[in-house]
């Protein structure tokens, strides 16, 4: 079957790719574009490891076809840091040891960034509910929540 030609913007850069109909956006990011920061966890939308933004909406890239991304603006974990300078969320995840194995971490970071762009001063409850779509089997979540709260504080103070 002919491949689909898809034009997108990823982390601000215009990117074109060819994909098969049944490739998800996650497949395309990881396997074609070598953007392996976005992780595959459950592949059913339950774990959030594959979280990216599409037109500024946080979504699971495992439940979106690559061909559906035509004309869309995609944001991935690779867009968080500026060169060698980590995003405040990344820095706070390190400082709070908010990760162990790290597979869920890109999804948490992308989801947390999306939260702080909507709500710069979330309560702990708001952080916990917002991150309900991201699963972590290592940390027990407390360190993640603290890191997000701390990053929010730092961004507000900057």
């Amino acid at each position: 079957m002919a491949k689909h030609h898809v034009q997108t913007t990823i982390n601000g850069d215009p990117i074109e790719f060819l994909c098969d109909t049944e490739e998800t956006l996650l497949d395309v990011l990881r396997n074609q574009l070598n953007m392996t920061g976005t992780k595959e966890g459950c592949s059913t939308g339950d774990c959030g490891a594959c979280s990216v933004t599409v037109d500024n909406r946080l979504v699971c890239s495992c439940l979106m076809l690559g061909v559906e991304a035509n004309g869309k603006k995609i944001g991935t974990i690779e867009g968080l840091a500026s060169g060698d300078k980590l995003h405040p969320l990344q820095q706070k995840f390190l400082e709070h040891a908010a990760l162990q194995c790290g597979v869920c971490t890109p999804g948490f970071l992308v989801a947390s960034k999306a939260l702080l762009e909507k709500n710069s001063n979330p309560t702990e409850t708001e952080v916990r509910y917002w991150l309900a779509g991201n699963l972590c089997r290592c940390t027990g979540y407390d360190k993640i929540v603290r890191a997000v709260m701390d990053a929010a504080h730092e961004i507000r103070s900057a």
Partner: protein
Amino acid sequence: MTSPPFRYARATSVDNAIAKGICNGSAFIAGGTDLLQLWKAGVTAPAEVVDISRLPLSEIDCSNDTLTIGALARLSSVAAHRDVAMHHPLIADTILASASGQIRNMATVGGNLLQRTRCVYFRGQDVPCNKRQPGSGCGARDGVSRQAALFGTSAACVATNASDLAVVLIALDAEINIQGGAGARRVCLSELYRLPGDTPAQDTTLVAGDLITGVIVRNVARFAGRMTYLKVRDRASFEFAVVSVAAALHIENGVIVESRLVAGGIAPLPWRLTQSETMLLGKVPSDAVFVAAGDLAIQGAQPLSENGFKIELLRNSVFRALQTIGGAS
């Protein structure tokens, strides 16, 4: 990749979508959150996926106590819409009690209403399920039946409907607009769903090519301040209901003049508790009356080996929901 390939077509108009949708083996995709799960699980294998997500059917309009929601509105957009949050907080709250932020950002209203059951036999492989594979038997009936329905089941199927939104919309007498090969029609949302009977593979009354284009909720101001959705689930967030109850009361001069009670998680479709509704009419709200409504709600329940706990849960949920909205205003 083990799931079978399919063709992809982007619908250019509603009529174009319908023409494509009528073809054998085609499936509409909008949010994709259910279709792609089902496809990956091998439950569905469409020959062609018709992308309707870019059709202009995502408008939300609220005026004169009429709320119109385009079928392609994302759940998160509906919940965040100022007029919905202000005038229809029940709908906003119900949506926010569903799924996760990621899924609500993708899933559409139409897709939510058409989502397929979460029964583990339906979603599983190498296990019998008459809904997935007609004639293979119902694994849940004599198997893992904790999720299964108490009402409206058949020998062929005991699966429940998982939509929170549908439960609330039916309590509010919502209607849906449908366009299809035979033209446009408007029906009560409750007419969308069907009981499994001998043909559980068919969830709804839609025929090939039918496209839900919008949802209409009218004249609910009489229930203002007396509507709730109680969702009981195994964890506080990102979980389907074990039992849920949507309740609405219209009280005049201290007497209940109109009531709506619809339960989720206990039947193949949002389950209207008609006997309880009728009993409430003319009554002065009290705990005793609400307990009686709960008692009536569970009459006729047909539990299996693992879901009998839902009976007491349903009775108590009806009571709690009514207690929440039935007090002095």
